[in-house]
């Protein structure tokens, strides 16, 4: 299925927002401080944008609120903003007239449904029947329901409405009769107005007088209710969708789903705390009935499908399958396979060498996903927004069909900002929570499961092989500026040496010379006054990436010769290398040297940096081939020739007495600091940090 790519309302927060007044600027700054703003902040931003006469901003923030854990009050406020502002913004992909027919007090549900539906891409107008009047409205051809001419009828009914005895004789007949009562209503609706039906299934009450005996008693009410739910599922054909309230209730807990006080006070059969959840899932099923579900899951690799960074740890070093962390990633992959089998198209979007990434799929014994599960495999060093656009164009999908999953908050933010139509799923820091995060996302819902669903990825893969279309790359400079990056030059000392040695020992891709040296060797080399060592940390507003780049250069004649230059995978593509080049040139000038000489020694993994020196304005030297180092290329650049790095980050030198591993720790004895460093560089921790 192909969708237009530009009709979706971006549901992500609009950062940076145009500051229309001081209030918006102040709130936007607060929102920028965390990746997912709180419900209260989303509400305040929606209200502030509405006040400032910016309906687009107001709607965006109202919709963003639905992805938080906002309660009834926050949702009510956002629903009010949406009601007033939606007419003034670009139309949503679909619109529909939705009748809510309830067996209990459904006014809160009906009031929140338009907000939830807009999040799913459907602008709805609602009609609500009188309290408990659902059956009369359906049966009376002249009722308000039919005058409203609905596209969708939601049967918001509760377990009390099922006419089942406490303990019934002949349970088969009782169940069949009850199911028939409901399917007859569906048929009447379908026949009279052609509307689609979305029915809530019955949440089986948690209070069971028969106790555990109920399960052994075929005619017991809880047993009958469970059977009715199952039979309704079997009976629902074309044009009928179910919202599995029994599952939702079990998931949040039956005690949280039903609150007797509010049932007796005002006939709330669903606790008011759970009405937003019910509205969200009902909206997903309505969206599925109208064909606006999301269709493609775009997956990062490192620390998303497996633990660790493939380019640094190697195939044997990634966590997948074995150990608690490895099992968490394997479980996530298993869940993704299930999504694929239900028709969700899978794509990979990774910053990796293509061949290395494919090798992991082909050779790692812990991999659950296979290469032919992936419709489009995008592993390269382009920024993720560019890759995501290319994936959508190649697969012939609208951007509003994509859901992007990445463990790295900065990548998520880049996609949110630059490809707003894509839904971005924030994975928790702990991989054990990945399956839950994906399972809580309701917008992959489809109306029916067909044989084509399981084969859909194959269809899209074929399309990807044919397509050559490529979307225009967005400008990244603005995004990089918004990341608020700071590169800090820190001294090589007993605190930084372990991390430097670790990087020297394992960095493969961004590594110009691939020289492996032990900590002792590095320390000896650095002690020579003719040696310059640059250690650089990088932080942005999401994360402190720690010490990520190392340069070792030695004086050689009139030149500063770069012996080692490497950078961690996780900060590739952020222009840090351009700033580091500026630091190397400055170091040469400081030492009164005329030139900087660089070398590139090719390895199976470092093709990424083959052109680095050329790009930085170095000239290739006509040095005779050294037979001991075939393929090595030397480069030279005058130290005082003009050089202008992109300047998308601050570059500073660490003040003396500052702990390079983070906080200021004046007065802490070195021994204690060393322990602190050791604690931070245990292999397991470090691996999980290599994002």
């Amino acid at each position, binding site marked *: 299925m192909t969708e237009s790519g530009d009709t979706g309302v971006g549901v992500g927060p609009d950062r940076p927002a145009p500051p229309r007044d001081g209030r918006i600027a102040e709130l936007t700054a607060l929102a920028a401080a965390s990746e997912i703003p709180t419900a209260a902040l989303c*509400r305040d931003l929606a*209200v502030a944008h509405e*006040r400032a006469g910016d309906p687009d901003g107001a709607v965006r923030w109202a919709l963003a609120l639905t992805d938080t854990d906002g*309660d*009834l*009050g*926050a949702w*009510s*406020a956002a*629903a*009010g*903003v949406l009601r007033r502002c939606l007419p003034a913004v670009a139309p949503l992909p679909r619109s529909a007239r939705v009748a809510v027919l309830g067996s209990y*007090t459904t*006014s*809160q549900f009906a009031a929140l449904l338009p907000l939830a539906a807009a999040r799913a891409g459907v602008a709805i107008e609602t009609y609500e029947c009188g309290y408990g009047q659902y059956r009369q409205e359906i049966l009376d051809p002249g009722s308000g329901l039919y005058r409203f001419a609905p596209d969708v009828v939601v049967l918001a009914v509760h377990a009390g409405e099922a006419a089942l005895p406490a303990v019934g004789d002949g349970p088969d007949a009782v169940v069949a009769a009850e199911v028939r009562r409901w399917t007859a209503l569906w048929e009447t609706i379908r026949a009279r107005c052609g509307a689609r039906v979305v029915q809530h299934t019955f949440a089986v009450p948690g209070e069971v007088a028969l106790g555990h005996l109920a399960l052994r008693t075929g005619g017991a009410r809880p047993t009958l209710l469970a059977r009715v739910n199952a039979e309704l599922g079997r009976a629902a054909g074309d044009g009928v969708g179910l919202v599995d309230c029994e599952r939702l209730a079990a998931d949040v807990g039956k005690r949280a789903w039903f609150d007797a*006080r*509010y049932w007796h*006070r*005002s006939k*709330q059969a669903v606790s*008011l*705390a759970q009405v937003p959840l019910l509205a969200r899932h009902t909206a997903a099923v309505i969206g599925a009935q109208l064909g606006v579900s999301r269709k493609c899951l775009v997956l990062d690799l490192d620390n998303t499908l497996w633990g660790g960074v493939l380019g640094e740890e190697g195939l044997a070093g990634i966590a997948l399958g074995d150990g608690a962390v490895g099992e968490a990633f394997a479980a996530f992959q298993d869940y993704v396979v299930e999504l694929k089998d239900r028709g969700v198209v899978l794509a990979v979007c990774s910053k990796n060498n293509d061949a290395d990434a494919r090798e992991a799929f082909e050779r790692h014994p812990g991999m659950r996903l296979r290469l032919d599960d992936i419709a489009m495999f995008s592993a390269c060093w382009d920024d993720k927004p560019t890759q995501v656009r290319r994936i959508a164009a190649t697969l012939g999908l609208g951007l509003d069909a994509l859901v992007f999953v990445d463990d790295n908050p900065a990548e998520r933010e880049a996609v949110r900002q630059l490809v707003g139509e894509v839904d971005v799923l924030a994975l928790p820091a702990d991989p054990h929570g990945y399956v839950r995060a994906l399972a809580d996302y309701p917008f992959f819902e489809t109306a029916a499961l067909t044989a084509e669903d399981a084969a859909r990825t194959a269809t899209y893969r074929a399309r990807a092989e044919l397509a050559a279309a490529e979307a225009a790359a967005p400008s990244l400079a603005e995004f990089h500026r918004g990341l608020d990056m700071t590169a800090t030059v820190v001294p090589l000392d007993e605190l930084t040496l372990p991390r430097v040695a670790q990087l020297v020992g394992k960095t493969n891709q961004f590594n110009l010379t691939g020289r492996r040296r032990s900590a002792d060797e590095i320390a000896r080399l650095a002690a020579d006054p003719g040696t310059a060592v640059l250690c650089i940390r990088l932080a942005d507003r999401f994360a402190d990436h720690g010490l990520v780049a190392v340069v070792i250069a030695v004086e050689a004649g009139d030149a500063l010769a770069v012996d080692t230059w490497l950078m961690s995978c996780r900060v590739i593509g952020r222009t840090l290398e351009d700033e580091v080049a500026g630091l190397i040139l400055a170091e040469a000038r400081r030492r009164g040297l005329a030139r900087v000489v660089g070398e590139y020694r090719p390895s199976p993994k470092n093709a990424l940096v083959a052109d680095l020196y050329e790009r930085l304005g170095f000239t290739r030297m006509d040095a005779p081939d050294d037979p001991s180092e075939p393929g090595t290329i030397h480069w030279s650049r005058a130290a005082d020739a003009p050089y202008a790095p992109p300047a998308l980050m601050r570059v500073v030198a660490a003040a003396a007495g500052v702990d390079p591993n983070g906080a200021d720790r004046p007065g802490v004895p070195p021994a204690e600091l060393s322990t602190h460093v050791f604690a931070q560089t245990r292999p397991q921790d470090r691996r999980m940090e290599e994002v």
Partner: protein
Amino acid sequence: MVQDRLQQIFREIFSDDGLLVSDTMTAEDVPGWDSLAHINLIYAVEREFSIQIADDRLASFATVGDMREHIEELSGVH
């Protein structure tokens, strides 16, 4: 303190960002304060202050001030 939090609740429930609550305010004074809004309000108050208001007390509130005093009594917040 209770007054500020109450005001925020009222603004959410009645979707009116400029609403100002006072002790003497009654349901008559606020457009849209019907039985449904009343339930939403009580629910939001119980949730915000982690309290449960008994049904007989619920019926006895004549003004917002009555409600505020009862909230302070139950929650210990002032």
